[in-house]
């Protein structure tokens, strides 16, 4: 980057101390530049977050650069984060000088040439067109829908995600151009730590990691414990399978998170902060490292931030692959170089946390909400939402819904709207069966409760939890027993092993689920097997309740939730597995039997060759026979049979 740019960056930072209205004209012009308002040359934005890259955006990026060079076109290429419309990745936006920014979907490497040829020749192609971004200062295209009106975006309220996919995550200038760090500057100038805690309390912000504890109150606890050293930790471990909200925020808008952390550290009086981020997020780690070093260069981290007398250093600690480290005391132990097992509470981290000092831990999304509140005030935040759940929630929607991806909605929005309006309805036009909210700690919401409002307390009434935002939509072809088994398996593998109810209890719950999804031929031949099976099912609920009652930490205490929840709403499915030994959804492979139809089989031996466990016996031209005990239910025989001679029950 040329020197001048860094100077402007520093100027922008210096200006944070002044009201925007008092900024010099030159600076205000620069700002417009970074707001992508007055372009000198075209900009091509490419979504290169992890999911974009997974869909091929890396190749798209290369091809775009090649194209520009080949055709000698002077245009800027900006890599942006994830806007959330993951199902349509790779996403490419093009903005010509003076005109609005236009978004295109599924632009893989091979589509680049065609697209750019069109656009640079004045044509906006209809194919792969998502829409144009509204901007009052730029000339819109006729007959092109606004992205803001797109069904996926229309019902969203994007506050936390407002910059994701729009700005260059590495650019501090672009973040400031979107009013970034205004909140921090104002607070440092006008508000004491105690007042900041009250402000956040007033806003009604609750922890977005899943527990929903009032953030301002949590900060106050840490503030009230005096100590020469305090710590502020951001939980970026995001271990729920199917959740990637935090990843997107860090990849797409890292400065927002950091601003939130600086504000939080100021509020509690911490001079050292740590981002505990899972190692499986290498791109997010890179973005975060870069953002931190930029802030250090510009004095927004380090000593005497914005001349306030407040000092803060932020370090990154990488997780090493343990879901349980998302639990506060386990995370603290992990940072201290120990096994990530939780510690008894009390004492709570606010009193004795990292290195026995007062510590506060917040989730990424919680912190990403803070700059907005600091900038706009608590009223702005609580102007939307429900009585007890204010603000917005980011969800990572996956599964059998058409529009998988990231979305942000007002609290109080109905689940139905998320699934059908934003999500576009069930894929392949199948029927909705259940929505799993909250991952392995959560529960499922069945069809009859699709109307439910997204609210911390309301969700609990139907046995679900808000969770961190993972939302998996399931259609009629999902087996709820299998879903419960999947989450139980996850909990068992991730259990730290310290306490008996979680380590042994969830293990036996999983054993029970395995027992009822196992075929007769795989069972222990002793006559007591079926009695054991019945017994374990009878005691399943009792076991689940004891685990909830007595487990050491949240992982164990909420571990039985998926089982209890599916038992509550899909009891009949369980009963079919237990008593009739069938799986109505056709998912539990072991309850499916494969048989050769002797009338149709010609003995071509194709299936026997393909069978990985040699379960198919039979000579050439003689009808074959499948040995049930050897059959692993992979289904390959069905795929290769040209005579439709294999029955699946």
């Amino acid at each position, binding site marked *: 980057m040329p020197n001048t740019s860094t100077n402007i960056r520093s100027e922008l930072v210096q200006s944070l101390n002044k009201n925007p209205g008092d900024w010099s004209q030159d600076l205000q012009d620069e700002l417009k530049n970074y707001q992508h308002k007055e372009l000198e040359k075209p900009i091509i934005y490419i979504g290169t977050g992890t999911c974009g890259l997974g869909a091929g955006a890396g190749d798209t990026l290369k091809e775009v650069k090649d194209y520009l060079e080949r055709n000698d076109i002077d245009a800027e290429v900006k890599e942006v984060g994830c806007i959330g419309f993951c199902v349509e990745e790779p996403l490419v936006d093009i903005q010509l000088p003076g005109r609005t920014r236009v978004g295109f979907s599924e632009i893989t490497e091979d589509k680049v040439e065609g697209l750019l040829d069109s656009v640079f020749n004045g044509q906006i192609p209809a194919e792969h067109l998502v829409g144009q971004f509204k901007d009052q200062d730029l000339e819109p295209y006729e007959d092109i829908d606004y992205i803001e009106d797109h069904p996926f975006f229309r019902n969203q309220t994007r506050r936390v995600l407002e910059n994701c996919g729009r700005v260059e995550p590495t650019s501090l200038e672009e973040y400031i151009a979107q009013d970034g760090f205004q909140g921090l500057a104002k607070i440092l100038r006008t508000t004491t730590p105690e007042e900041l805690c009250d402000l956040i309390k007033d806003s009604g912000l609750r922890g977005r990691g899943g527990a929903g504890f009032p953030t301002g109150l949590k900060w106050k606890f840490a503030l009230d414990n005096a100590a020469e050293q305090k710590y502020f930790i951001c939980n970026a471990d995001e271990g729920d399978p*199917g959740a990637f909200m935090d990843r997107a925020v860090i990849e797409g808008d890292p400065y927002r998170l950091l601003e939130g952390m600086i504000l939080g550290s100021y509020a509690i009086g911490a001079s050292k902060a740590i981002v505990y981020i899972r*190692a499986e997020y290498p791109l997010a780690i890179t973005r975060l490292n870069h953002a931190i070093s930029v802030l250090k260069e510009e004095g927004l981290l380090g000593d005497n931030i914005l001349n306030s007398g407040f000092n803060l250093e932020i370090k990154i*600690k990488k997780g090493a692959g343990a879901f349980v480290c998302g639990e506060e005391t386990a995370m603290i132990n*992990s940072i201290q170089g120990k*096994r990530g097992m939780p510690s008894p509470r009390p004492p709570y981290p606010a009193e004795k946390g990292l290195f026995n000092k007062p510590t506060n831990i917040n989730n990424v999304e919680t912190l990403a909400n803070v700059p907005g509140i600091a900038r706009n005030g608590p009223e702005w935040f609580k102007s939307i939402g429900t009585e007890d759940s204010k603000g917005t929630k980011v969800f990572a929607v996956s599964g059998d819904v058409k529009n*998988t991806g990231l979305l942000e909605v007002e609290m109080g929005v109905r689940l139905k709207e998320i699934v059908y309006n934003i999500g576009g309805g069930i894929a392949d036009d199948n029927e909705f069966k259940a929505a799993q909210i909250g991952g392995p700690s959560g529960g499922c919401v069945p069809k009859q409760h699709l109307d439910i409002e997204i609210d911390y307390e309301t969700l609990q009434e139907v046995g679900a939890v808000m969770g961190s935002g993972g939302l998996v939509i399931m259609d009629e072809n999902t087996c709820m027993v299998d879903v419960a088994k999947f989450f139980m398996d996850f909990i068992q593998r991730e259990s730290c092993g310290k306490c008996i109810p979680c380590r042994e209890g969830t293990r036996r719950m999983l054993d029970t689920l395995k027992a009822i999804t196992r075929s007769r031929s795989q069972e222990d031949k002793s006559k007591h097997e079926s009695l054991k099976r019945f017994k374990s099912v009878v005691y399943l609920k009792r076991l689940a309740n004891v685990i909830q009652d007595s487990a050491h930490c949240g992982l164990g205490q909420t571990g039985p939730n998926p089982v209890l929840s599916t038992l509550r709403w899909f009891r009949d499915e369980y009963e079919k597995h237990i008593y009739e030994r069938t799986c109505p959804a056709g998912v539990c492979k072991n309850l499916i039997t494969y048989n050769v139809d002797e009338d149709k089989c010609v003995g071509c031996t194709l299936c026997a060759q393909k069978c*990985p466990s040699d379960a198919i016996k039979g000579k050439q031209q003689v009808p074959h026979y499948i040995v049930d005990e050897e059959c692993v239910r992979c289904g390959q025989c069905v795929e290769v049979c040209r005579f439709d001679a294999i029955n699946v029950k």
Partner: protein
Amino acid sequence: MDSIDSILEKYPNAGRDSLIPILQEVQEEENYLSKDNVKRIGKYLGLPTSKIYGVATFYNQFRFEALGNYHIQICRGTACHVKGSEQVLEEFKRELDIEPGETSRNGDFSLEIVSCIGACGLAPVITVNGEVHSKVQPGDVKDIIKNYREEVKENA
């Protein structure tokens, strides 16, 4: 002074809270944690080896066996599971005769379960030495392995 020394040098006056970052760096450098290296780290940090081993075995990330020439990662996130990654994993286990976390006897292949690669739209997903294979079915496993086995022969 070898690579381990240069890693340790980066942590002067290190306390126990540097243990995991050091282990992460050593593993990145050497691909796994050998007994000798763990002993050296223990000496450097003044930590008993049993504690270091206890910490390292707790986390998924750390290996105590060298990776195979072809390291296969199978994603078992929710989306991949729903699309059948469990069967894919079973196929690999059967074909290679190793469990996740292990390396085959001849050192050609090693297997690892990962939680979510983040390419859920392409489920089921596996990577081999970082190269992403998407929409993998159990029936594809034999061929995938065959191809890499041939590469091994060619490179030999």
